[in-house]
């Protein structure tokens, strides 16, 4: 299904005997990325955690910038948290931006006090979330990011946990 801005592929996958709502969103331009960021900003309630998974240059930080921009945070204010480990931005909700790239183990992540952020009324993003998977909250939105071309990215969104399915459904609907 091709769309004017980004394309959406929707599906249900069985995994670990749990029905997971997932969909793919293909971006081919900056505008598409902004659109996905805006859709997330319009639908993610405070208290949501987003796990970002993907290799170097896959578009993880760029997506958080797009989300923050839709929240009124200037793009240049949202930068890579690789070295400082967590950035905070004040959008309509507080936005917390973690990065596990430099962390060597779960303990180093736990020491940042992520639970406090997960349980806050802000939206928390965790880059390289697969490296600290055991430390993530019980329910979260998973977004896998892949560079499929020099300027195109594929984002695969999946609900992790029962309460998240409705959120992922809402994101998908707002992109249609």
């Amino acid at each position, binding site marked *: 299904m091709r769309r004017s801005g980004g394309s959406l592929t929707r599906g249900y996958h069985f995994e670990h005997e749990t029905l997971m709502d997932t969909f793919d969103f293909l971006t081919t331009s900056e505008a598409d990325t902004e659109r996905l960021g805006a859709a997330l900003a319009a639908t993610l309630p405070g208290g949501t955690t987003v796990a970002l998974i993907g290799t170097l240059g896959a578009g993880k930080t760029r997506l958080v910038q797009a989300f923050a921009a839709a929240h009124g945070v200037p793009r*240049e204010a949202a*930068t890579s948290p*690789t070295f400082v*480990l967590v950035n905070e931005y004040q959008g309509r909700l507080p936005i917390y931006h973690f990065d596990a790239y430099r962390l*060597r183990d779960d303990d*180093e992540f736990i020491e940042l006090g992520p639970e406090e952020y997960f349980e806050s009324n802000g939206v928390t993003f965790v880059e390289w979330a697969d490296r600290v998977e055991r430390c993530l909250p019980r329910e979260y939105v998973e977004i896998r990011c*892949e560079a499929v071309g020099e300027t195109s990215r594929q984002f695969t969104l999946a609900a992790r946990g029962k309460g998240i399915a409705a959120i992922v459904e809402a994101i998908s609907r707002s992109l249609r």
Partner: protein
Amino acid sequence: MPLILTIESTCDETAAAVINDRLEVLSAVVASQEKFHEQFGGVVPEIASRAHVERILPVIDSALRKAGVRLSDLDAVAVANRPGLAGSLLVGLMAAKTLALAGNLPLIAIDHLQAHIYACRLAAGKDVFPCIGLIVSGGHSNIYRCETPLDFTPLGGTIDDAAGEAFDKVASMLGLGFPGGPALQRAAEQGDPKKFRLPRPLLDDDSRLEFSFSGLKTAVRYQLFGAGKPEMNAATLDPQLVADMAASVQAAIIDCLAGKAMLALQQTGFQRLCIGGGVAANRPFRERMERLAAERGIELHIPPLSLCTDNAVMGAIALEKYNAGQFATLDLEISAGLERPHLARST
């Protein structure tokens, strides 16, 4: 003779130093460079505030002992309380506040990035203000207008990855190991910097003193491994290809840093450039800046490496605040985030 204890814990390093009123360094201790292993059970963690908690007192104690002074001899305690990692900043701040309270000493707040510029003043042994300050490290890529040691205005910075982060991440993609900066520089020595055409975002935009390095990762990936979902295995790459890419990436980063530094000088009419941060250790970068400075009659200051990477000696900027009577109260807080030009303008 005023003596100031300075404390630095903004990121991964725990450091302390004792400075006197002639800017003489009586002692300088950086945890990672010390043999504290036995005290820490043989393991020195690199990241996380727990490491700072374990190191901070031995580091301060060591700095005082090496300087041959006691707490009661000090005239002030200074601490870098911004910007950096919140948990790490807190450890240094709490230590400084506690010493200030216990010793009834004035407390001085230091901006870590301003301190990086002040390292040039220390290394030069003379006044370097007014100047343009450029801080390039793993966590920062910022440009400041520095009128005096007490008057810094942020002019711009990176809008995504820091320059040192770009070095590290590209080095990782090329299988060059860590730390990425030195590894990439070494590989680049055998490479052709014109072999690959890489983006230099924002370089041609004279209205912006900003950097964007995140696109380099994509460009490297695309040019080395192709489109689609390639298996990025650096081990399969021809060593000459790796060297050429390393040289090309290094050239792209240096072009951006040099271009914006020159633009800032041009816009302000300043004649001095002070550079700090770990990336200043990169030799081709130094050589480029030296060449440009010579051509344009710019006075260039780049401190020795030990003053470029995170250290407490550069906290000597606290002496300027001491002399100006700029003291903090005991309710001083940390500020993890970076002061941004647009924020500075709106306040």
